[in-house]
């Protein structure tokens, strides 16, 4: 059933708009105000602001992964390494050549896109699980490069990176960085949304659903798979660049296979093929360990001997939560949200 009684479109532009009713536009406005007010309200809590910054930076990379995996159907187990490419590239460019932050960020995006496309070449011939494992290879190989090419990455000692600054303004605190991250996260969300509702997005989904018919109606498969890898990696690179300038020092462990897995769990728990779900999933996965820590924290401080056990427990619970989610909410949070919305949209009917 369509949105609401009394909403009629007189142009195609209106019909294709993202927010179609005045009510939804109103709530978007409220949300934006709330997001802008957030750091002022929680100015005192560096911890909360740090989590918020992490969520915002991660959303960008998660969107990239969902474009590739959720929308185009190309499973990637190397996303963490791609984020690393962006982080190192950005840091290196700034340290070595003194390129301003924005330049580093954009260049990092492009460099990562190129690297991603190179590792996307096997997708020409590989499908499904074979491709997944090829991307795992990308992860391992890139990780190796991070550790070994000390000249660029600083190896396992890490690379020191100066904070982001635009026109002399330094984003050197959690509070200040929040606005930078928010800007790029919102931009990334809008760009991702626009991609999926226009020509390339439709081609991606066609490849995901039925690549044979996609090709027969004129979609060049290889070109679009590469584009998907490129866009996905671009997002990863930008996210990596932001992360690098935010955190100040990066080491290869920041980009290991566990990170790739975390990003996968974000999009799966949020909802494959859903922009909205990506955001929910990212929030969930970033918050989950924090919540577990918040619970285990007081306990482990009273029983210091058990710290190790609590750490292990956290890992186990993380796995368990993912399992439970997959079993009971296989289509992700976005799907659940849609069901809830539909429940009210159709109320008191069911169809």
């Amino acid at each position, binding site marked *: *059933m369509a949105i*609401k009684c009394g909403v009629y479109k*007189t142009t195609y532009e209106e019909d294709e708009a993202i927010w179609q009713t005045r009510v939804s536009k109103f709530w978007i406005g409220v949300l934006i105000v709330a997001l802008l007010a957030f750091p002022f309200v929680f100015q005192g809590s560096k911890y909360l602001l740090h989590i918020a910054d992490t969520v915002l930076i991660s959303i960008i990379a998660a969107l990239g992964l969902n474009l590739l995996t959720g929308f185009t159907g190309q499973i990637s187990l190397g996303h963490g390494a791609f984020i690393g490419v962006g982080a190192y590239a950005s840091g290196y460019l700034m340290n070595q050549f003194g390129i301003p932050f924005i330049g580093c960020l954009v260049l990092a995006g492009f460099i990562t896109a190129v690297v991603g496309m190179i590792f996307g070449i096997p997708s020409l011939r590989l499908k499904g699980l074979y491709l997944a494992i090829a991307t795992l290879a990308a992860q391992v190989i890139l990780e190796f490069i991070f550790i070994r090419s000390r000249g660029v990455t600083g190896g396992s000692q890490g690379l020191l990176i100066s904070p982001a600054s635009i026109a002399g303004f330094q984003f050197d605190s959690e509070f200040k960085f929040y606005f930078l991250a928010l800007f790029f996260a919102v931009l990334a969300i809008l760009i991702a949304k626009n991609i999926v509702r226009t020509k390339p997005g439709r081609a991606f989904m066609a490849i995901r659903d039925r690549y044979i018919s996609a090709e027969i109606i004129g979609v060049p498969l290889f070109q679009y798979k590469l584009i998907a890898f490129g866009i996905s990696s671009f997002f990863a690179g930008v996210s990596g660049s932001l992360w690098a300038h935010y955190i100040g020092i990066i080491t290869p462990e920041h980009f290991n296979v566990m990170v790739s897995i975390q990003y996968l769990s974000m999009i799966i728990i949020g909802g494959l093929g859903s922009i909205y779900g990506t955001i929910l999933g990212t929030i969930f996965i970033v918050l989950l360990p924090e919540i577990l820590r918040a619970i285990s924290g007081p306990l482990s401080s009273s029983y210091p001997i058990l710290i190790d056990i609590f750490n292990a427990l956290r890992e186990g619970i993380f796995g368990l939560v993912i399992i439970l989610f997959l079993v009971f909410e296989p289509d992700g949070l976005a799907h659940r949200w849609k069901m809830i919305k539909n429940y009210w949209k159709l109320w008191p009917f*069911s169809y």
Partner: protein
Amino acid sequence: MAYFSADNGGDMAADTFPKLLMERALQYGQKKTALREKDLGIWQSFSWQVYLEKVKYFSLGLVSIGFQHGDKIAVIGDNKPEWIIAELAAQSACGYGVGIYQDSILKEIAHIINHSESKFVIAEDQEQVDKILDMMDDLPNIKKIIYYDPKGMSKYEDEILAHFPDIMALGREYEKDHPHLFERNVEKTEENDIAWICTTSGTTGLPKLAMLTHKNLISMASNLGKFDPKYESDDIVSFLPLPWVGEQMIAVASGLLFGMTVNFPESAESAQSDLREIGPHVMFSPPRVWENLCASVQVKVMDASWLKRLVFNAALPIGDKWSDYKFAKKQPPFFFKIIYYLAYYAVFKALKDRLGFTNIRSATTGGAALGPDTFKFFHALGISLKQIYGQTEIAGISCVHRDNDINPDTMGEPIPETEMKISETGEILSRSPAVFAGYYKQPEETAKTVIDGWLHSGDAGYLTPEGHIVVIDRIKDVMSLIDGVKFSPQFIENKLKFSPYIKEAVTIGHNRDFIIAMISIDFGIVGNWAERHRINFTTYTDLSSKPEVIDLIQAEAEKINKGLPENARIRRFVLLYKELDADDDELTRTGKVRRHYVEEKYSEIIEGMYAGLDSIKIDAVIKFQDGKTSTIHTVMAVRKV
């Protein structure tokens, strides 16, 4: 002009539709939307200025190909802007026309075109054009067939065909040599000119052509508007057949008079969702539409989850009680008001949105009586549904409920400038400026219908002390059992039809010992019910003969009997093996049962039921749309209630 609504400037002299159109175009120009049509996925809008231009050039185009004063057009097709543009264009050229129901049988179409002496046929698309072309030999008057949907038409080379925009182009050319002709023509139109012909079902089976003047239609719209105001900001959705007088009243006459925006749905299949997109402020429909809406709600609730059902079932009685207060014109107690508003926000508000009635202000029903339960249902939702009573011959309306005076058992009170009385034989008579100019070329029929200016309705009825008209039934339909007990079959049938499972019912009992009913089930809803109860069935006939289904209807009938007087209850019923169908002449085109025809057709069954048989064997021939026939052998069980 006494019959002019004050809201629209009393001193304006526009007394015909073309003049009204020019006035509206002058008043609103490009600023306001006159017509909106869902086409190619979006609502394409035309301003009043554009509307006028289209009418102008089509009118001139008609003139250029030989349309003369007093000539007629016939229009057949779906509701589209072209339909009313053609209507106004004919009027602007000092002529008029007649609308033909699309599903009419060919014989009827030919009769209407020939009897009205229409020179031009405006046919929507290939389908309608084919119908006309097939009958060309029998239609000597036709000069041109003008179609407005060109799909599939390119392979036709017949000279008699023309595309709607091409005629408008001709009009544009014609204007160069005949400047101001259109304006002069419009100037010549007079209020007592015939504006349009509406067909009404005749006694012989062929329709009669009722001529309505501009004055008839405008005064009707204006007087109705005094009781049921309409504003220029209102939207209406035109989805009922335009040949019907009701659609002429609202979409054409009221639309022009009050400057409302008329919206046309994209296709018949999407009419319901298109209506919801627009969310009209004004809607006038025959009972069938309201009944279907009500039934669809019941079905959808039945299929909803238990929690939704629970909430709905809790809210509905509250709404019904609210309606009772309203009908009794009593203020509900404060506490009850709170409960109602809770129910309203929990259920009814959402329901209104789902049905497309969020903005509805004026909701009316007419053409037949609407069952009180359906009435109650819509009032429970907070939709002030009102009954309209009238005949085609009085431009559709003589009385209506007033906003604070709604009684589902009556038809309301006469609108301004309308007098009503009951004749000695108990017949309802009415007189107003809207009483028609007569049947086309049937003066003797006209003389029988209008006597001394009084329109004889053929309905039996009475006046309540409050001045409301109550209609019992068609005079010839009021019946009495052999013991003298009077009953109205229509009343019982409406009760039966309120059940979502029952699509149509015919009750019989005149000069008999008791009342029986022949019921046809609603295939969709009962089929759905059967599926949920794991009852296998193949066809309509098969489903109707399932004992479980008969049990289901029996339960419904027993419920309904409780609301009927002891001595006028249904005693026996059968489920018919087919749906009543207008194509089989069992219903009129507007969906009313042709009682006598049905009684005759199913006499075998009726006699069987009165003879006390438990089951009746049927060998019937069924005709399909494509002309094929097949024979049905079935056994119908007779149930006692």
